[in-house]
């Protein structure tokens, strides 16, 4: 018996030695027992589904990616601001209008901050809004089809960064400008920036039924940089908060010149007051050219409308609508806790977090305790609005999210960590490293009145050695932490696509049951749709040839076409006649100067082909649709321009 005990001790000692060796190896800790429990937490068995959806912005990919939590598996890339050859988005005739702007067709943007629509401050899962940062736009993506349904351009704005955040009943989606610019745009010396440039904060109202967007008004603020924003909620519903930097109004070498003021501002905007002012005829209409693109699900087609006018509001014309809250050191994230009481300024050049109190702000406004003004906008006294300071011990706070137990989680870019702290007491509860240099973080619903505090996802800017190397360019890395306990626990690490700036998440049960399986053929109102194969045909209008084609496993109707000539502009209008879940058909033809089409059941898409060479050119289905997919092909005969071969088409003759 004694001997047995000795053996156990020896084993234990060996184990200790082994684990301490592991720790000496640096950051790659490998504690077997811990890893096993973490694995169980993220393991979603084959055939099982995830608990949460996570929508990660794609940053410079221009698109939105859909992931599952806790598995970190990617389900879909939703094309929004970038052409997407996988589906033909931005290449098909139907979707080209979605990328139209006042500057013409733009194939790309930098997609930043997803926000899911809300009712009474809780996620309702109807739509997700995202912003295009470079050529300012806001897009609305349907959460039943998971497709982009609408894109509106924002005039007078530049670097559309303090966007696209929504008010708690999705009354407005808000888009603030990061770069102030001349409003209206004009030819003027850059050096005359100060007091001449303006920062437009746009309030875009959202039709509660269709989600259609329309710019209600633009607040023309002083020429600072409006970095991020968040809506008030609960008691502070009706207000919107924007962080600013470059209150110095520098136009060059901003990294030095915009970092001089000890404090910048959080701008508190009482949008309800401005809404009332505007509803009573206030504001100034200003000529402005901007595109409004709407995709109609029944015609499967997007259309562009150019708008010519926007309503602008000068903040000093609406007394009591805008105040500045001094906030230390160029704050980045501007986050509001689930109760709406605390407004957190993440001063990115500071170690501490500044928390303002909504109640104290109202008191200070009531008591008119101002500390001067900036361009006529009252500045409140820092001490009067301050609720507390989080002495974090970290460096470079960027963004804060919240759980449902009164805790906040802040990312620290410079010190590469997530810090958990308590609202009200401001004490730091826990801190965990991230890999590396974390930007945004996301808790499902963490940006609403009802967070689901089970996981936090940290999205990093630097990957380095986290995965197998793939040359100089790598995907970014993200980490998932279990936050159900007092201490955070790192449970998973996965690569993300593009550069996620923020994300939005929600319980799977909110979206999965209503996710569309197919488009109904009997509801297809596309002007070039064929609803039955006997209506498939080819029509010539001068040099334009329209091919009304249908597809079903496993053939095209028609699949032999003759009478096309060099110099023709051939439109393939293809309708997928399948009415079965997950049976798309693809289309491509040799020499096509565009992408393929991927056509969902019941959908019609159009590809243009301008044949330049005489010959017989094959086309085929690009999606392995069935056992006879390889047989799903056809030919188009292209004759010389002066040929007199009649147009003809057939199938199976």
């Amino acid at each position, binding site marked *: 018996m004694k001997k047995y005990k000795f053996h156990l001790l020896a084993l234990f000692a060996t184990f200790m030695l082994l684990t301490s060796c592991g720790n000496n190896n640096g950051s790659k800790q490998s504690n077997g027992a811990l890893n096993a429990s973490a694995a169980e937490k993220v393991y979603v068995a084959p055939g099982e589904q995830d608990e949460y959806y996570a929508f990660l912005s794609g940053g410079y990919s221009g698109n939105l990616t859909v992931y599952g939590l806790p598995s970190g598996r990617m389900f879909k890339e939703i094309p929004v601001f970038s052409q997407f050859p996988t589906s033909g988005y931005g290449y098909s005739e139907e979707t080209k209008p979605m990328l139209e702007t006042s500057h013409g067709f733009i194939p790309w943007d930098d997609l930043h901050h997803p926000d899911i629509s809300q009712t009474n401050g809780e996620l309702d899962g109807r739509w997700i809004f995202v912003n295009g940062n470079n050529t300012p736009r806001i897009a609305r993506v349907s959460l039943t089809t998971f497709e982009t349904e609408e894109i509106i351009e924002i005039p007078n704005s530049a670097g559309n960064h303090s966007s696209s955040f929504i008010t708690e009943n999705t009354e407005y989606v808000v888009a603030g400008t990061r770069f102030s610019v001349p409003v209206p745009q004009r030819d003027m010396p850059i050096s005359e920036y100060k007091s001449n440039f303006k920062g437009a904060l746009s309030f875009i109202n959202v039709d509660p039924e269709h989600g259609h967007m329309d710019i209600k008004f633009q607040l023309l603020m002083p020429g600072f940089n409006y970095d991020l924003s968040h809506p008030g909620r609960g008691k502070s519903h009706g207000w919107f908060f924007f962080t600013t930097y470059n209150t110095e109004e520098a136009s060059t070498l901003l990294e030095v010149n915009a970092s001089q003021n000890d404090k910048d501002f959080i701008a508190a905007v009482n949008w309800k007051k401005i809404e009332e002012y505007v509803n009573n005829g206030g504001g100034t209409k200003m000529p402005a050219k901007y595109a409004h693109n709407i995709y109609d699900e029944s015609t499967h087609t997007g259309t562009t409308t150019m708008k010519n006018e926007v309503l602008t509001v000068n903040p000093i014309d609406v007394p009591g609508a805008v105040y500045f809250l001094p906030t230390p050191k160029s704050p980045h994230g501007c986050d509001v806790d689930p109760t709406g009481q605390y407004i957190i300024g993440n001063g990115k050049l500071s170690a501490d977090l500044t928390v303002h109190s909504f109640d104290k702000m109202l008191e200070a406004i009531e008591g008119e305790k101002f500390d001067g003004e900036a361009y006529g906008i009252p500045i409140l006294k820092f001490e009067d609005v301050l609720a507390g300071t989080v002495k974090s011990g970290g460096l470079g706070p960027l963004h804060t999210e919240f759980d449902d137990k009164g805790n906040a989680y802040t990312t620290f870019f410079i010190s590469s960590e997530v810090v958990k702290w308590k609202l009200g007491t401001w004490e730091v509860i826990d801190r965990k490293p991230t890999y590396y240099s974390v930007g945004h973080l996301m808790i499902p619903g963490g940006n609403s009145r009802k967070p689901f505090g089970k996981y936090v996802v940290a999205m990093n800017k630097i990957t380095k050695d986290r995965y197998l190397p793939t040359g100089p360019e790598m995907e970014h890395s993200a980490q998932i932490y279990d936050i159900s306990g007092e201490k955070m626990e790192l449970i998973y690490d996965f690569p993300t696509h593009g550069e996620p700036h923020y994300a939005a998440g929600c319980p799977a049960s909110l979206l999965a049951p209503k996710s569309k399986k*197919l488009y109904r053929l009997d509801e297809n109102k596309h002007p070039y749709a064929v609803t039955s194969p006997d209506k498939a045909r080819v029509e010539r209008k001068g040099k334009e040839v329209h091919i009304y084609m249908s597809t*079903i*496993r496993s053939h095209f109707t028609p699949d032999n076409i003759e009478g096309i000539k060099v110099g023709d502009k051939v439109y393939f209008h293809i309708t997928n006649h*399948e*009415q*079965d*879940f997950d049976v798309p058909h693809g289309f491509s033809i040799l020499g096509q100067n565009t992408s393929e089409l991927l056509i969902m059941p019941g959908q019609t898409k159009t590809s243009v082909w301008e044949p330049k060479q005489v010959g017989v050119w094959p086309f085929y289905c690009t999606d392995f649709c069935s*056992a*006879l997919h390889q047989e799903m092909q056809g030919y188009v005969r292209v004759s010389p321009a002066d040929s007199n071969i009649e147009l003809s088409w057939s199938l199976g003759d």
Partner: protein
Amino acid sequence: MKKASIIMILGSLLLLGLFKFPLWNIMLGAPQYPEPLGINIYINGIQGMNEFDIQNIDGLNHYIGMKTLPKPEDMWEFTVFPIVIGSMAVLGILIGILSYFKKVNYKWFLGWLVLMTILGILGMYDFNAWMIDYGTNLDPNAIMKLQNPDGTPMSYKPPLFGHKKMLNFDAFSYPAMGGYLMSAGMLFTLVAFFLGKRVKTITQ
């Protein structure tokens, strides 16, 4: 005897369930159909379990050269069956009422049940014959012509009752609500017969 007559009437009424509920159900599941395709067979036609199931079953069947699933006008059965079921229900109710007023005796109950059983067997025979035709009378130009190991052409006849594996599909064929109601109705008439017989014996 009154109790037996009422049970006879109730049993006959249960037949009318066939006008609302399907007689039979066939489900087809496969790896790529985790949500199985299914058809409900009513006395007046065939319907998909989900809206597009018939279209999708026909789409799959075209590979093996099967005829498309029949529409009501394609088969005389879908016209005759409702008349037969309706007539049998009316007849059963009539017998029940007459026996209630002591115009006929309990033996008529058995007579009705024997007739119904014969018609039922004929119906099943016809149903099976249709499935044999449907599963074996295939287009000679079918895309996929599969053979059994002995060289005979493979049959795609769904089972009359129970489970059968057909290529990648698992076919399940069982009575549905209308069929169960009909069986219950027939059981009721048998109960009515024995009840009537016992009452008769006691009164004698």
